[in-house]
Structures are given as C-alpha cells and as structure tokens.
C-alpha cells in the first residue's frame, strides 16, 4: 500500500518550479531523505534549493529520518529570511 502526501512549495522554490505544490504517492516507509532525492531527480532545476531546504510535516520541522504517513502535508522550507 502507498502513502499519499501533499508537497507544498514556497518562495524561490514555488517560482522555480512554477508550482504551488504537487501530490505524490510513495511506498510505505518512504523517508524525508528519500522524498528529498525523488523531488530532486524529478526536478533537477531545484536540486540545489532542495539540498539546503528543511522539511516540515503538518507544521513542524522533521528531520531526514521521518517516515511519511498517509495524508501528510509536507512543506519544503528553503532557508528563511523573515524578520
């Protein structure tokens, strides 16, 4: 069985992909590290941004070992510059 996740892009990543986000389906057990790699191979133009980005799931930062759950809302967070 696969897990379905919603991936959301912001700022530079949104503009470079020309997309607010995408829905993906991954095998159960897929981690953020694997997601990071998959997104990069799917969109080579954002590989560098992805390498610097953190990921948030359901509004909290997660690390690369986080295992995706069905229905997760995954935000890709390039280095922030607020304040």
């Amino acid at each position, binding site marked *: 069985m696969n897990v379905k996740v919603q991936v959301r892009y912001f700022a530079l990543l949104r503009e470079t992909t020309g997309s607010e986000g995408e829905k993906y389906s991954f095998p159960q057990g897929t981690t953020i590290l694997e997601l990071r790699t998959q997104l990069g191979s799917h969109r080579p133009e954002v590989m560098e941004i992805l390498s610097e980005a953190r990921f948030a799931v359901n509004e909290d930062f997660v690390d690369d070992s986080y295992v995706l759950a069905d229905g997760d809302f995954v935000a890709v967070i390039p280095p922030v*510059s607020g304040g």
Partner: protein
Amino acid sequence: MGNYFDLTWDRIDSRVTADHVRHEAAGAVVVFEGVVRNHHKGRSVDRLTYEAYEPMAKKKLEEVGAEAIGQWPELTVAIVHRLGDLAIGEAATVVAVSSPHRGNAFDAARYIMDRIKIVVPIWKKEWFSDGTHEWVRPAPQSSP
C-alpha cells in the same frame, strides 16, 4: 493585554503591538521594529515582498514567544509579522516585550528576533532599483 502573535497583510502599528505588553508591574518595555531599508549588501532596494507558510509561521511565532517566556517567566510578548508588498520605511516585524527590569527585556527581544530568523517560515524577496529581484538567501551577518 497579554501575549499576542499575528501575521498581517496591513501596515503594522507598533504602538498597538506595544500596548499588548503594557501592564502595571512592567518597568521596562522594549520594542524592536525590523524596517524595510533602501539598501542591501551595497545594492539599492526599492521594495520587498514577504511570503509565508502562514499556519506554520503563526504557530512558530507563538512557539518563539513561549520559548522566551520559558527563559524569562516575567515576560509579556507580542510579535507581529507583515506579509505582502512593503515600501521602504515600513515595518516587516514588530516585537514588543515587557518585563519588570530592563536587562531581561533587552535579552528577550534580541533572542526572539534571532529565533524568528531561524524557525519562522517567512521569505523575503528584494526588488532592486536596477529592475532585478531576488529571494534573499540569509547570511547571519546580513539581516536588519
């Protein structure tokens, strides 16, 4: 009156933000305003655009406030961050803290700003006077 955290698309009135933290036991009020300036790394800037992952940004502002109160329990904190297009001189962030004594108020305001720049998902695009624009890639020493 009390702790207050908000994102807004309208101009921030720093007096209103500060009024949230005033109370009779507070001897010190420190207000920080991060204001759009007309230059960055030697380049002339016309305006800025701020974009947020809004629900997470709101939540992280609240968490940063809670962290500060954890460190300085007598603190009252208000943080407002602006989104959208900002002209030179407009406030992007206003942080107001009150405390019985000034040392803690200064420490807390600075701590809050440092943390905002790390954990709050808000991004800034600079529109330069030469017609180009760029999403800011933060460097520790480059920020207001």
